[in-house]
């Protein structure tokens, strides 16, 4: 009898407290997530400009005042580091901060540059927070202009960067916001980009493809990624 009563109490107690506990767990997890995001933001303070660095005339590419379907360089005097990684972070953060006229910005104001590296072959990897993808106006034009503003700005200020790979929150994503392909790199300094497959080259490629199929069964090479 005692045992039964005890069991009934235990079951009712569990039934009442389990959902409450679960809710608390969920809330705790959420809090943790928030604070992780916050910690990341705090860790990734925009690279401070060192006033002792020489002030140079940096060219930043935002939308053109005259034609918002194009980019135009704006000359800003900034103390830029001579280290290519620091220098890239400085110019990209300035680009993210936006021009005086906010209508001419190319990147969403809440996007954050989380990390930036340059590989030995000159490929730069820029990792942005999710806001870059979620806050940008969706469309071919807006997405391509966003990418172009980065590649043009890096090209004008950091000659060491040959091409740019954009990651979102550490991950490769298929598109920026549904249109522009982020699985490949973007050419930064023109001579280093993927060789253009222009009209005549396309013809050649076509002809190349009809050569006899001597199949060497080496692993199929994809696009060098």
């Amino acid at each position, binding site marked *: 009898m005692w045992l039964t009563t005890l069991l009934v109490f235990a079951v009712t107690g569990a039934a009442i407290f389990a959902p409450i506990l679960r809710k608390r767990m969920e809330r705790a997890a959420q809090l943790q997530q928030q604070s992780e995001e916050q910690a990341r933001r705090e860790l990734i303070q925009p690279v401070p400009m060192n006033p002792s660095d020489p002030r140079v005339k940096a060219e930043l590419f935002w939308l053109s005042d005259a034609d918002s379907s194009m980019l135009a360089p704006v000359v800003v005097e900034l103390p830029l580091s001579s280290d290519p990684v620091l220098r890239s972070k400085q110019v990209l953060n300035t680009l993210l901060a936006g021009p005086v006229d906010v209508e001419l910005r190319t990147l969403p104001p809440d996007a954050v540059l989380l990390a930036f590296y340059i590989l030995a072959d000159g490929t730069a990897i820029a990792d942005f927070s999710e806001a870059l993808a979620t806050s940008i106006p969706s469309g071919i*034009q807006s997405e391509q*202009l966003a990418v172009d503003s980065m590649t043009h700005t890096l090209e004008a200020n950091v000659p060491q960067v040959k091409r740019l790979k954009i990651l979102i929150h550490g991950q490769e994503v298929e598109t920026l916001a549904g249109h522009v392909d982020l699985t490949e790199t973007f050419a930064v300094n023109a001579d280093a980009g993927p060789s253009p*497959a222009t009209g005549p080259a*396309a013809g050649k*490629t076509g002809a190349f493809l009809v050569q006899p*199929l001597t199949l060497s069964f080496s692993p199929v090479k994809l696009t060098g990624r």
Partner: protein
Amino acid sequence: MLLDVGDSRRLRFLAIGGIGSLVVGGAAMAFALETSPQTQQGPGAGTLPPASVATAGQGGTPAPAGPAPGPPTAPRALNVVVLDPAHGGTDPGARGTGGIQESEITLEFATRARQALEQQGFQVVETRQGNENPSFDDRSAIANAQRGAVFITLHIASTGIPGTVRVYVNADLPPVKAANGLIPWDLAQAPFLGLSRKLGDLVQGMLTQHFKGSPDAAQTAAIRQLRTTAAPAIAVEVSSVVVNDRAELDHMVPGVADAIARGVAAFKPLYAMALPSGALP
């Protein structure tokens, strides 16, 4: 021949050539072989007239530039237009004032463009007719299964001067290294870029006649949808969802449809010319 090796995008290839072509898909994976009487003969990028294979095969040199003797290339003439109303389903695309959704309006543009193209004698295939959202690859696959086709993806921007329309072609792609006769799925557009530019310029020209303030020539962008499409392919982007009244966009529908139909009709002879010269793989 289109082989779909597994569902990993990077393991999808377009197999080039009729006889003797094989797809090696890294790890042995179950693969679905899509065969239809049409695709067996080779659609889109996979199309190779047997004559040109023989010519190239014997000499090991590129196909001759002159028109190939023999039967006319009528079966491969441009006669299909694949229209792709972008977004749909859970993806509304660009969202504007007053609940305007890109996915709905692109359907409206596609319906009217279909009528205009059919009047010009083209057969039209749409990648979606209702509120679905096929993947980029699914949409490309519809175009890649056709022969003698062009692909037009329709978009409404969230930026740009209202009342203008821009045409885009895919940005340069790395050259196709296809010694084994295969074009990676990811680079399906590469051999068609030259033709895509011609088609883009023609359609843009027609659009600019209707919509003042639009550019004079097609522009380039790294468009995911075009990259995997093995046909002359363009994106048409209308500005914009940010309008006070949806009627402003509705008014543009007939003009866009007409410009697309006339642009594709003007492109048809260029497509035919590209066939014997080997510009089409």
